[in-house]
């Protein structure tokens, strides 16, 4: 059974097609990278998986259950970090972490404290005073402090400094070692390279390729056999490919 499975998923906003016949599977124990340029449809896919948006057509299943109808049941076993973390100005980071964790399960205090220390967050500060990176840390700590089966992370490191990015990679590797599954949307190739078993590339609402990173690089290799060595280059080549089609 797949941890999550998307079949022929289409999502339209009015006339605009944000997702077009998307197919995707994430297996148990796998870290799946989801990459693509801005506005490609990564966040939209994730929101459909979380039952925040409803599919226009096609199916999105998580743990074999319907992402829309069984959202509450599914969310008991999911931890999610949104790309844009919006918090309550008047609550402290510590309060939000506790709230987020407890809306799913009992909180594990030791884990929470370890993560707060590791990510150097001051949990006594009100959220209004947090920088973007600090708000992201709140969401990350809440996610890593939860004991979930599937972790859905949407550009989780976009506001973090490199050291914190490193800690993030460590934590995801921890999850991987304990057999958890992860869906990671990211713009950072090194992150994807180190963490992901398989990668899906989405462009303009179409998933144009899935496979291991090596396979992707191979398929995007130039005539001279040179492999793309950055995310931008990979994108550029796929752009050309998708243009050609």
């Amino acid at each position: 059974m797949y941890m999550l499975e998307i079949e022929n998923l289409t999502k339209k906003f009015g006339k605009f097609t944000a997702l077009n016949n998307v197919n995707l599977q994430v297996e148990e124990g796998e870290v799946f990278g989801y990459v693509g340029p801005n506005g490609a449809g990564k966040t939209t896919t994730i929101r459909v998986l979380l039952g925040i948006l409803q599919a226009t057509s096609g199916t999105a299943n998580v743990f074999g259950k319907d992402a829309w109808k069984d959202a509450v049941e599914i969310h008991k076993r999911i931890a999610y970090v949104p790309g844009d973390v919006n918090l309550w100005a008047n609550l402290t980071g510590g309060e939000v972490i506790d709230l987020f964790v407890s809306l799913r399960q009992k909180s594990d205090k030791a884990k929470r404290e370890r993560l707060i220390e590791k990510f150097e967050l001051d949990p006594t500060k009100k959220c209004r005073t947090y920088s973007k990176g600090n708000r992201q840390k709140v969401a990350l700590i809440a996610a890593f402090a939860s004991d979930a089966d599937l972790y859905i992370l949407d550009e989780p490191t976009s506001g973090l400094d490199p050291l914190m990015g490193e800690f993030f990679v460590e934590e995801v590797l921890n999850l991987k070692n304990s057999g958890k599954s992860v869906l990671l949307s990211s713009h950072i190739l090194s992150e994807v390279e180190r963490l992901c078993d398989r990668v899906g590339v989405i462009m303009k609402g179409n998933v144009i390729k899935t496979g291991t990173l090596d396979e992707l690089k191979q398929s995007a290799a130039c005539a001279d056999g040179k492999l793309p060595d950055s995310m931008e280059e990979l994108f550029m080549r796929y752009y050309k490919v998708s243009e050609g089609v």
Partner: protein
Amino acid sequence: MRGNFDYTGKLVKFMLRRERIIAAIWIIVLVLFSVALAPGLETMFPDNETRENIILIYDNPIMVSMMGPIFDIDGEFTTGTIYAGMMLLWVMIAVAIMNIFIVIRHTRADEERWRAEVIRSLPVGRLSTVHAAMLTALIINTVLAVLTGLGLAATGTESMGFGGSMLYGAVLGASGLVFAAITAIFCQLSASSSGAFGLSFLALGGSYMLRAAGDVGNEVISLISPFGLAQRSMVYAENELMPLWGLLAIAFAFAALAYKFNSMRDLGQGFIPARMGRREAKKSLLSSFGLSFRLLKNSIIVWTITLFMLGASYGSIIGEIDRFVGDSPEYLTLVGLTPELLDTLSDSDKADMIVDGFGGFVTIMMTLIALVPLLMFALKPKNEEIDGRAEGILSRSVSRQKYLAGYVIIAFAMSIIVQLCTVVGLYGAAESTVREGEIGEVAAILNPFVFEKLLAANFAYLPAMWLIIGLAVFIVGLLPKAGGVVWGYYGFICFMALIGNIPDLLPAWLSNLSPFNFIPEIRVTNFDLFPAAESSAVPLIVLTGIAAALTVIGFIGYRKRDLITH
């Protein structure tokens, strides 16, 4: 080495540019408001007798603590003295708020966003920013003071001469400057703009309370408060100048203190460290309901107190109500009586009847005011959604219904609380201020309200309030971007409630669009000469049914739609 104040002139220009629209709106609204009410007051109280009557209403501790004293000229009250007594305090509060915003916007808030850093890397003196902010406030307050003074003088009201009007404007501006300077100090002390806001508003509230305490007790205490001091200029009566100089001196001294603190601290830092919050959440926060309650808690407390106080202040004027309004035709139409009717009654029935009409009027007014927090609460989940915070909860194992219910339940529960506050405030104040034989010339009537009846009259409005809450839930569920519709409908209901009493003015179908139109009038006193119009519970049940239907449809819609994203 550069001077402490280099570049101030350019900064002032820059700040005024940023302020020009907001400041212009503040000034226009305040001046128009101040000027427009003067002629109205003159027509409302054309002679000594009517003025005496309003003074009677004001002459009790509750009103004095709310409004401050009204000064006389050798025992005589004029439109001018009544105007100053009724208006100055409120306008000063508005001007204080304006100044708090101005100063924080250009000092602490800029610093928070590190815009100030960019500026200070220019050849700008250490104290230039705070100095420029004070000068900006000075300029804006001066414009406001002069325009208000000239405007009032230009109304040509006999008792509001040129000198007095200019003094009125001047103390207004000077009290504003005091708050600008106080805010400047707090901007140095606190490390965040919200902290500075909190402290400044605390100072504002404290000034109001000090004045209240002093006005009903020892007058010296009032002088400590900028508001109390300003009122002691006795505008349009004695026209004292000393309080004006006092205010300016205080503003100057506070500004100097703010400069001193500013030079003692680093950019981005404060003397008072940002207040630490809880490291861990209380148990009560840890559910979606706990969260919505926490987010609304302060509003609930503030509105509860406000409505109670408002109810109490209405109740406190019951003792003199008939002297004030007894024969005023406007009032009689307002409460649905005619002078002919009045003539046929005995004195005690008369008092009961007038209080009864007044009670009905107050019930409608208070219900309208109480709807504001209810709508804010019911629409809150929509704002949470649009600001992207609902997603954080709904992506966890919280169902849409449960999340929405967290706010809707509070809104419905609050509807009962607010009506109860009004009743208790109104009844309690009437009970404690009406002494024997004080209703007009009528003997031996104590508090004319009957508690059960007053309660019933107020609770009768609940189905109408629920209908409006239901509409809000419906909008949240189905058309979250159309929240304005709810406020528009609320405005319509207010309009109908105030205009609707005028017979034959509006077609019946229009009146019937307001749920208030179906609420039976319930007597709030023992008055029973004329039975109240035949009332049945059917309209109330129908309104409740519609409210329930709207709420249920809203919940279903909320479950079925996409959340607003982006």
